[in-house]
């Protein structure tokens, strides 16, 4: 079987791109930057270049180093694993095509194109480009991001739903917990102490998930509990409305609409609580 590579387009050219990778051997270890020159074919992306470097871990000075460590999974931008800062902007490495990230054809060297890779800065670094996003998942647990069904036995269909309502929920439900919105948020700061997570800002994605589950007829039974979290410390009130989240979201989730909706729900929730005395 021939390899499943398309015939190279006539405009194709192989070139060399320099990578500056921020490395760190582990929590508490110092950071350093290592440079690698990578031969790049058209259609290459950051992951394919990282794979090349992992197989040939030699810096431009000719020094043999350890292969860089990074997280990846689906490579189709649906799992959220390979989120990192590429040229200073947070995004998924798999969907970052080299020709788009570094269109310059100048060969590496002074004035040449360099692609900078650094880990997400809002989460503790595990090693090199790997970070620990446990806080993110903990926050999903705090806002009870689930529909409390009666169990896994067959109890008939779920509620019917208009196509518009489905479209709204679907958009929110494509959140892959990648953390781009958190990385770009000026209000979401790195917090390494797990005991401080429950009072630190939850960030756009988690607010949006709360809105998603509040919007489901069965999910709404936990709405008061979710809104208690969202109105408390680290909740939606901590949002500073910089709206970076919605601009960096790779899935184009309307995060700022979720924040507005959460604001409204929290307002109503507070008024209800005030008058019901609970």
């Amino acid at each position: 079987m021939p390899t499943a590579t398309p015939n190279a387009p006539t405009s194709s050219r192989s070139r060399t791109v320099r990578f500056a990778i921020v490395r760190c051997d582990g929590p508490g270890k110092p950071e350093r930057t290592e440079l690698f020159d990578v031969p790049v074919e058209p259609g290459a992306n950051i992951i394919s270049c990282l794979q090349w470097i992992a197989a040939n871990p030699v810096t431009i000075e000719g020094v043999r180093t350890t292969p860089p460590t990074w997280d990846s999974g689906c490579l189709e931008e649906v799992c959220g694993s390979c989120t990192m800062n590429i040229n200073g902007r947070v995004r998924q490495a798999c969907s970052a095509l080299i020709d788009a990230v570094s269109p310059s054809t100048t060969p590496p060297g002074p004035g040449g194109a360099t692609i900078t890779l650094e880990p997400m800065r809002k989460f503790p670094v595990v090693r090199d480009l790997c970070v620990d996003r446990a806080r993110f998942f903990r926050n999903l647990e705090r806002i009870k991001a689930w529909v409390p069904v009666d169990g896994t036995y067959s109890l008939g269909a779920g509620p019917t739903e208009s196509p518009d309502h489905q479209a709204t929920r679907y958009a929110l439900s494509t959140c892959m917990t990648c953390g781009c919105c958190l990385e770009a948020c000026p209000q979401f700061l790195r917090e390494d102490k797990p005991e401080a997570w429950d009072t630190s800002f939850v960030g756009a994605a988690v607010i949006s998930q709360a809105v998603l589950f509040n919007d489901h007829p069965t999910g709404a039974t936990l709405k008061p509990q979710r809104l208690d979290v969202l109105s408390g410390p680290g909740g939606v009130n901590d949002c500073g409305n910089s709206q970076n989240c919605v601009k960096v979201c790779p899935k184009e989730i309307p995060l700022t609409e979720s924040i507005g909706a959460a604001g409204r729900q929290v307002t109503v929730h507070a008024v209800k609580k005030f008058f019901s005395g609970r």
Partner: protein
Amino acid sequence: MNGSKHRVIVVGGGLAGLAASVRIAEAGLPVDIFSIVPVKRSHSVCAQGGINACNEVARQQGYSEYEHFDESIYGGDFLAHQPPVYEMAHWAPKIIDLLDRMGVPFNRTNEGQRDLRLFGGSLYKRTHFAGATTGQQVLYALDEQTRRYAAEGKVTKYEHWEFLWPIIADDGACRGIVAQDLRTMQIRAFRADAVVMATGGNGLIFGQSTNSVMCTGGAASRCYQAGAKYANGEFIQVHPTAIPGADKLRLMSESARGEGGRVWVPAIKGPSGGWTRHPDPARDPRQIPASERYYFLEERYPKYGNIVPRDIATREIFNICMEGLGVAGGNMVYLDLTHLGREYIERKLLGIIEIYRKFVGEDPAEVPMKIFPGVHYTMGGLWTTYTPKPDLKGMTLGAPNSMMCSVPGLYAFGEVNYQYHGANRLGANALLSCIFDGLFCGLGVANAVRDAKRLASDEPQALYDRAAEQENAKQRRLVEGKGDQNPYQIAREMGAEMTAASTVVKSGPRLEQALAKIAELRDRAARISLADTGMWTNQNLSFARATADMLTLADAILRGGLERRESRGSHYRTDFPERNDAEFLATTVAQCNPDGTSRIAFEPVPKGIVEPRKRTYGKKDDAPASKPADAPKAPALALAAT
């Protein structure tokens, strides 16, 4: 926390693993989930098209659970055992309802009912979908339920832990696992009264595939090396429509064809009706007139057209390119959605359209997509057993051996299980089989554990210490290796060889050659030296270990293919192009030799309720299309549903 002295380990946090965890936890047993990645990032997120189930609309058009069962058996070229498939097809509507209740945003009709789409291998709309990211949505629903159980202390997640070995007690039963924390690199033994493997497929053995980077098949291979049988390894689904890429092949869902996408190549129709290569095959596809577009699937399969099953579509696309009819003479054909209109495409297929836009940089609403087959799914897997109902119409619910491996106490659910799909999986049956395994067979696991006479807590600590030490020793050998071999290079050569020898078209001599190559690579793998010998988040070490395990499984895949001297489903031998039911209506069962090679036996497929029939999907010879096409009719026996 649950005070139960029982414990169940589930390895893998994809659909099958999470469905099993939720079901077993619900039955009152504490569950430990081990996953290399956070479970929400499991490979199940990549499933795009949908999930099959008989529904009211299809039912009133003559479809039924029985038809679903029959299609799946026929689609799998009669290699699948029938009772499990029968049971799965009948559970499918319940599973859809359950997912619906869990909040999966299935696409809706104007009235608010679940919308349906057409999928390969069926003439009825029976595929439920959530945009073009159904797998993601379904996985998230189960992830959410798992999170809920984790919050309630019923499930414990060990994320970023890699399964290393099943711990088998002196009575031959699996009573735990050895696993490694991929951050601290700590190796630990864990006790369990049952271990469910839900570790997915092995696409990485083929180098580039549509699979995620963790789909090495390493976990399955380790069970196989520990004595579990491996079945039907040679049946690897090559998806007809993938987008070639530098790092992986990205799937272009079958739903693109189900929603009306047409496959064609530029060609000239000769006076005799045959098609020949277009003189200018590289020109802009939008400029090519209809008369110079060869819709070869539609011409050759008038009944199913573009939605023939995957193995057939793959072979046809492959052959068209071999005949030199591919786009620009290369290994590409067009998958054309442009006639469907942007609004329709974006509403029904947005997820996959975006993948194409992002990774290729062209808009499928404007320009036909360029696609080529890519390794996609592992029909084979760990050999499992079950208890059929006496009339063969389904499996016995709650039977303790439901999808149990040849090692007692070790189970295989989902893609790592060889059941359900036979020689070829129908599109949108994978999500179904994963969830079905978890829910249906999870109950069996719970029963088995509750009724067990001997528990993991009864086993001596030495058993676990020994198992952990054995893995530590293996790791030391790898870390201290001073050889000249790079694991990435070995993996690359293995991928290229496996793709060339054991995918769309195979032959005896080529498979033998590949076996020799794998043997060579196995020798070289013994001389690996690591570029990173540190003991903190050492991905180099994990990859090197998996590479050796992939080679072991590759041997089983190749040898199964070599000894199966027939063609069936996805397995096509040029030297044996016909199906041979007399000899090979049988499961390939591989067992691992101490040196990592495999020995193959064939175990006849038990008689089921439908008899094997010729599997043609109404194929027409590629002759002048003078006579009218066969009128579409129901594809299978017109038996009433039960």
